[in-house]
């Protein structure tokens, strides 16, 4: 009897927690569908009854949004590309070669990965302003790639190590060169790892706010997070069109949520390392 009661109350608590954690996401979706006149009324509307996609249409027709989307997409895709190439070579080195300095290299990567952007962004700002590279998509890409490469190497090395060297060696016995063996045998087997790493880099670059705030100072070089920020700033002094802001936030969040679900388990295992053994 007592255990049954405990099970019920645990279930209710768990559902309450689920509601609390999902609510802001729900509120974003709900508000994005409601017209601003409804949102301005004194009683909140918990269901998007009588809602429409007008807010989304307004966002997509907004010049600022379209421009920020262009900047964000360019920087994000460039970051993914650079990061994948660089990190792949690095992961290959640490999982296929035993070389002097290998351990120090891994140690350095792990430490660098922990460094807060907030502890470096002033210097990065100064560096770019003296190089005339503030507001440069290339500049921001370099900073983003450097920020994600250490963790990506760490994540990829497990995948590279997971492909047995014997496979490659067998192919070489059969007459393929080392490079050929690698390209035809190992590389295809690494595809899942490369996808996971690419998605990780995508998420980091797409969501990043801090560094972009510092080095992208002009209106036309704003990324999507910076563009969203201008609405938060505006809300301090005047009524904001919350319906439109929520629609814009939804557009920013949806690709992220989908991609995130793809790589979440890999990211967790990379972070908590050997602490959770299956």
């Amino acid at each position: 009897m007592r255990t049954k009661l405990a099970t019920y109350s645990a279930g209710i608590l768990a559902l309450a927690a689920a509601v609390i954690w999902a609510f802001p996401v729900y509120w974003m979706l709900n508000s994005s569908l409601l017209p601003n006149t409804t949102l301005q009324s004194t009683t909140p509307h918990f269901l998007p009854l009588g809602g429409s996609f007008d807010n989304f249409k307004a966002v997509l027709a907004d010049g600022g949004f379209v421009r920020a989307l262009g900047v964000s997409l360019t920087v994000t895709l460039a970051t993914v590309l650079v990061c994948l190439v660089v990190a792949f070579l690095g992961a290959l080195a640490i999982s296929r070669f035993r070389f002097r300095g290998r351990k120090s290299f891994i140690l350095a990567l792990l430490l660098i990965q922990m460094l807060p952007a907030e502890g470096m962004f002033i210097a990065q700002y100064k560096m770019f302003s003296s190089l005339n590279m503030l507001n440069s998509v290339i500049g921001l890409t370099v900073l983003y790639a450097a920020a994600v490469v250490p963790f990506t190497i760490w994540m990829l090395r497990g995948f590279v190590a997971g492909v047995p060297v014997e496979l490659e060696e067998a192919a070489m016995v059969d007459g393929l060169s080392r490079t050929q063996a690698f390209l035809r045998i190992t590389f295809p087997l690494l595809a899942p790892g490369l996808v996971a790493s690419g998605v990780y880099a995508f998420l980091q670059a797409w969501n990043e706010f801090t560094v972009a705030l510092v080095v992208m100072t002009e209106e036309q070089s704003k990324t999507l997070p910076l563009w969203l920020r201008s609405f938060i700033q505006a809300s301090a002094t005047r009524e904001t069109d919350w319906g439109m802001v929520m629609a814009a936030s939804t557009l920013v969040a949806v690709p992220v949520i989908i991609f995130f679900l793809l790589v979440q388990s890999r990211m967790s295992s990379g972070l908590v390392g050997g602490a959770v053994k299956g």
Partner: protein
Amino acid sequence: MTSQLSAPKKAKDRAQPAPDAAPQRPRSRAWLLILPTIVLLVLALGYPVGWQLVTSFQEFGLKQQFGQPPEFVGFDNYIQLLSDSNFWVVLGRSLLFCLLAAGFTVIFGFLLALLMKQVHKSIRLILQIALLLAWAMPVVASMTVWVWLVDWRRGLLNWLLVKLGVDAQGHNWLADPVTFFITALVIVVWASVPFVALSIYAGLTQISEEMLEAAAMDGATGWQRTRLIILPVIAPVLSIVMLLQLIWDLRVFTQIKLLQDAGGVANETHLLGTYIYQAGVGSGSFGVASAVSVLMLLITVAISWYYVRSLMKEEN
């Protein structure tokens, strides 16, 4: 989560040659492979950190912005900083915020993980999906929602409080530093709990039901089972998520900056990150900003050291 975790690891054990088993591999090629990484990291991080270290020992203010060469002043920036009571307030506030946020996050994460173990599969799935949704939200997108929720004019929070009989009509929670930080704390904890809860839950799944049942039959109370069986098994993951939270919560910037934008009083609500931003980009005192940055990096490296070492152990 656990099955994916173990798969690459087992394969690795099989595949990786012993360190001396691959003498035919050219070593210089390895260095060629890590060269791009090194170049990238030196360009984007190494050079700025070096510049920062040098600048933290220089007088580098507005005059230098207009071309005057910076002067070396030894530890002056650090002395100035350490004798500035405002800096101590910011540092103390940051540490307190970091401890509270990390503490609440780990406590809630642990409780939710225990709950997930207790409840029926379907309820667990619902909770897991809710946590993943919150975790996946881009930070700026979630901040627009939170700012809208606590908005003093038409926010849901004030409406709810009025319904509950609290006189909160038109109250601006961001205007007062104390309620500002409570709001920030709620937002940061909300965003951090999913990772912690799901990681701890992954650890909990390794505890066999039989062991817990056997202990219960032998008369162990719920608390004894938690303390003597559950805690030792998940101690490693608990300590790692705690460390990561401490590091991440010390550097919290986006949430604070955006809450300041939404109406907080910036001068009374700075944490280390926004303080550096203000000193550097805001008022052009790059010497001081560099000194704070160097201190922040040192604190981070000190806390990270244990974590990095434990990851390295796994690598060996």
